[in-house]
């Protein structure tokens, strides 16, 4: 037997690095990517979860509507709650007064033309997935560090994977053999998604890691400490409409994003939708009489790369085709990670299948691959089932998500330890299919949709639920066929 050359030895070592770092980080990364994919449409998910709020075509905002929102701001400030106004946009055509409840921004919505309160059910909506995506629901510091590390591990896995498959990338770029032997089909799916979505994966991982608010590497200076708790002036605010018009002129923009209120001033920012570079430029006005104070812009050459990184990662500038491409790319990267996890288990089942560590690994894989989508669907189900007037219903929805995930985890790990992993996979996939098929029916029966746009939104969600259900049912049927 000939001794392998340097290049071959390097590849062999990369194989170990890719498998182990990829599997351990992959369990977390699958959760990050799945929730990140849903976050592309976070506002639309919120709208679906508040079906009472009519989504009329975008009207121009009126001074009366702004006055109503300003009154709500004052009422909240009297109660010591920090709030801001989110201005309507083509994606979210309502005026919202939002506050941070510890995990998400929630608050009432108003008609931008009449200022009428659009009473929607209390929910965290798409914000829940957004926060989960970058904090894993474990706080901004711990979660930020965990997701940052996961990002670094993904880059290590990506580089080692590129080295392993370098030779086959070009000729096998669109090679997929789903009808071949099982490991081959999974490997093809892994390579296909990995190669075709490589630019997206690299950009989204790199930008996602560097824009983390709590960096692993350098202490970012926090903004000047918030004004110590003291009585906030709650005298009437100046008319906001002229301030928005002036902001548009001063920042040379078509749209404004949100209005922040400090004890001294009012800050109106450029809309995130207006440019690929997420600048958050602001115009600042005096709180008492509304006269213009200054603008804050970040247009130095040094700032541009980071604004680009934020813009590329958040993708708020995008037209709807690009949003859908982001969504599909995120979905494909989730499939890439899931296929990697499954391949890791398939390759080791024969030799290590009897070991407790292997059984645990399989349990974790099941709770990630099947358990998380089940919990996400349970979260949507909870939105429809929990009564609108239920006190603390937003928190109750989140509790349903985690309770479902805990149940799924318990079942997956117990069945895996009892050497019945296929039963665990099958049961969870069937549950996923049932939840996916049932949700459109529950939605149609329980909730009236007030406008054509609400109906279109509901149909889109229904279609994706049915696609998920079909994929889960096909996978479950193949497993049943294999084990019977």
């Amino acid at each position, binding site marked *: 037997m000939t001794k392998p050359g340097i290049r071959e030895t390097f590849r062999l070592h990369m194989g170990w690095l890719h498998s182990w*770092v990829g599997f351990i980080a992959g369990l977390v990364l699958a959760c990050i990517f799945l929730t990140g994919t849903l976050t592309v449409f976070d506002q639309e998910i919120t709208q679906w979860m508040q079906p009472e709020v009519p989504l009329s075509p975008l009207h121009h905002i009126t001074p009366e509507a702004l006055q109503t929102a300003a009154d709500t701001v004052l009422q909240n400030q009297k109660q010591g709650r920090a709030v801001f106004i989110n201005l309507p946009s083509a994606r979210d055509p309502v005026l919202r007064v939002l506050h941070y409840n510890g995990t998400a921004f929630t608050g009432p919505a108003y008609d931008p033309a009449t200022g009428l309160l659009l009473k929607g059910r209390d929910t965290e909506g798409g914000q829940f997935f957004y926060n989960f995506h970058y904090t894993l629901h474990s706080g901004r510091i711990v979660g930020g560090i965990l997701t940052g590390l996961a990002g670094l591990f993904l880059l290590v896995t990506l580089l080692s994977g590129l080295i392993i498959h370098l030779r086959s990338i070009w000729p096998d770029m669109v090679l997929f053999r789903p009808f071949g032997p099982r490991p081959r089909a999974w490997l093809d799916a892994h390579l296909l998604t990995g190669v075709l979505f490589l630019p997206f994966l690299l950009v989204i991982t790199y930008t996602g890691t560097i824009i983390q608010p709590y960096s692993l590497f350098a202490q970012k200076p926090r903004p000047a400490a918030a004004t110590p708790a003291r009585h906030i002036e709650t005298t009437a605010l100046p008319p906001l409409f002229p301030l928005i018009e002036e902001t548009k002129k001063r920042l040379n923009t078509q749209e404004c994003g949100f209005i922040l209120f400090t004890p001294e001033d009012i800050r109106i920012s450029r809309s995130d939708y207006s440019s690929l570079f997420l600048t958050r430029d602001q115009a600042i006005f005096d709180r008492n009489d509304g006269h213009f104070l200054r603008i804050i812009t970040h247009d130095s050459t040094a700032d541009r790369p980071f604004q680009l990184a934020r813009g590329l990662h958040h993708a708020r500038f995008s037209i709807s085709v690009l949003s859908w491409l982001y969504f599909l790319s995120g979905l494909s990267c989730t499939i890439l990670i899931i296929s990697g996890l499954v391949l890791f288990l398939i390759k080791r089942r024969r030799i290590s299948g009897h070991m407790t560590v292997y059984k645990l690994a399989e349990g974790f894989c099941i709770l990630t691959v099947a358990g998380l989508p089940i919990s996400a669907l349970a979260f949507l189900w909870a939105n429809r089932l929990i009564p609108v007037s239920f006190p603390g219903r937003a928190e109750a929805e989140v509790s349903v998500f985690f309770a479902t995930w805990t149940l799924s985890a318990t079942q997956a790990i117990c069945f895996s330890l009892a050497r019945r992993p296929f039963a665990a996979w099958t049961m969870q996939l069937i549950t996923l299919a049932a939840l996916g098929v049932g949700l459109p029916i529950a939605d149609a029966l329980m909730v009236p949709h007030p406008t054509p746009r609400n109906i279109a939104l509901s149909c889109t969600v229904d279609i994706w639920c049915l696609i998920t259900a079909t994929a889960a049912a096909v996978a479950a049927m193949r497993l049943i066929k294999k084990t019977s």
Partner: protein
Amino acid sequence: MPWHRVLWLLCAGCLAWSAALSWADLLTAASRLNPAQGAMAITAFATAFIPALIVIGYGARMHKWGLWFLVLLSISGIVIKNLAL
């Protein structure tokens, strides 16, 4: 799991971390960036180079050149940083 591989990976990881950070510090200190921009630049630099250096360091398990390269990079970064800053 072969623990010597894990140890090697940790070793490569620590060296990569220290090399990337010390050089990132050096490069950003030389430019005229404000603290926020400096922190972002260090993060951007370290995020790009740490994975690459880990791959080189771990891949050098049989051929020690990679690890010596990392040791050299790390020590030189720390020494120059301490002398220059």
